[in-house]
């Protein structure tokens, strides 16, 4: 552990920083706009069924 301690003193990087980088929480999702969905469907070819946007649901009210 001595080498880790020495490294911490030089760089300020701790084992906690390393652990945080190696055990990240899942990134927040950002959903595509419809142009990107269309591009994906074209690029994906046979995968278009799975990669296409979800079926629109009727609006309430």
């Amino acid at each position, binding site marked *: *552990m001595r*080498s*880790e301690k*020495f*490294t911490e003193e*030089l*760089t*300020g*990087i*701790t*084992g906690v*920083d*390393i*652990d*945080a*980088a*190696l*055990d*990240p929480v*899942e*990134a927040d*999702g*950002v*959903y*595509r706009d419809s142009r*990107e969905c269309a*591009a*994906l469907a074209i*690029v*994906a*070819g*046979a*995968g*278009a*069924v*799975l*990669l296409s*946007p979800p079926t629109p649901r009727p609006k309430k009210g």
Partner: protein
Amino acid sequence: MEQSGTSTRLQAAVQDLASGVVSVLRGGDHTRVVLTAGTEGEAGDLALAAVRVLGADAMLPGLLLAIPPDPAEVAAFRKAVEAYPPRADAAPTVRWSHWGMARTLQRIDPSSGPPDEPGAGWLDEAGWQSLTHQLAVLAPLALPGEDCAVSRAAVLRPVDVARGFVRAVRRRDWRQAAGAGRWLTLLPGVPDTLGLESGLNFVELMGGQDPQVALHVQAARLMRTGARL
């Protein structure tokens, strides 16, 4: 969430290192990527921490392209393994990342003996979304012929990982999508309707400016075309 200056510098160093790996995997001029981690001083120590975070992938070009390992690079890689062992309360991904690095050292030098595997029970209980996230974090373990508890858990759930890949693409989580796609390249039983190759091309198109995304996509591409360890 705002990152501290330390974690920002570490993340930048990891990205630099990943860029070097991608360059070698694409057949670029660089042949040494982890050497600065063996040098003295703050830059060397930051690079050492970056090697620990990038994990086994820091030595991926040597393994996938069958390039004889540079002794100085192996020494720097070993130094990162020894400097940052998992702490007693470390998360499973931290333990498995360290295991992956030790396993890589053993591949390079078989006389060093196989490292003991951490437990993988947490994956058995994981839903498909969490499984995909965890596997993507552990994408450096996705290697041809690797047989460990994590890869065995992945082999049992190709459809779940495929669903997770699609979810990651829809969420624009390119790093998770690339890591999941790298695993899917190796798994039997992946639905043809997924369009994995096209999907990976799209992930690279949209997220490939992130070197860690490019690394996983390039690794997957090499493995799809028959790269073996």
